[in-house]
């Protein structure tokens, strides 16, 4: 499912909202989530999961072409931990081999 399919599916269920309102809503939500993480905040959605930042210490990498060592600064990377309901529901599809 892509972002535009997500927008269409929500619009179909929320028929009182115009497609463009749903589109703007979804984009606003994703922007809020990205900006929360970019400023170091967590996201906690019960039944869905939580997004946090994981710290990566500085390290010496290599230029893949020349093999020369490159100093890489520390950074944070986004991490998602699925919540209980999402874990259970995603796993329920495993036996049906619907993929």
């Amino acid at each position, binding site marked *: 499912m892509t972002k535009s399919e997500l927008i269409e599916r929500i619009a179909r269920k929320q028929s009182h909202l115009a497609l463009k309102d749903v589109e703007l809503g979804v984009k606003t939500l994703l922007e809020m989530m990205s900006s929360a993480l970019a400023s170091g905040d967590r996201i906690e959605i019960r039944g869905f999961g939580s997004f946090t930042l994981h710290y990566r210490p500085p390290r010496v990498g290599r230029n893949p072409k020349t093999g020369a060592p490159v100093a890489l600064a520390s950074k944070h990377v986004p991490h998602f931990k699925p919540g209980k309901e*999402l874990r259970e529901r995603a796993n329920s599809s495993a036996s049906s081999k619907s993929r």
Partner: protein
Amino acid sequence: MAALTKAEMAEALFNELGLNKREAKELVDMFFEQIRQALEKGEPVKLSGFGNFDLRDKGERPGRNPKTGEEIPISARRVVTFRPGQKLKLRVEGYAGTGQ
């Protein structure tokens, strides 16, 4: 570290989009519910600019009850993984933070 919740997300839709409070709450609920439904059906979810929710099938593996030390197999299962998109990774990389 503050946390963004559904209540704040609905509040933003109310303030910024002019949806009424009920519509805003329903849209937030529906947003997460549709992602769950897709994953439940075995469909990966690709939200460009944010990231992808993928499904991975894991085989059975040996595990242990951490309390008793007793060996018990961990059953085969399908799990959700999140791969942040390039745009989100770059924005988060810039966060200087306090480490850990």
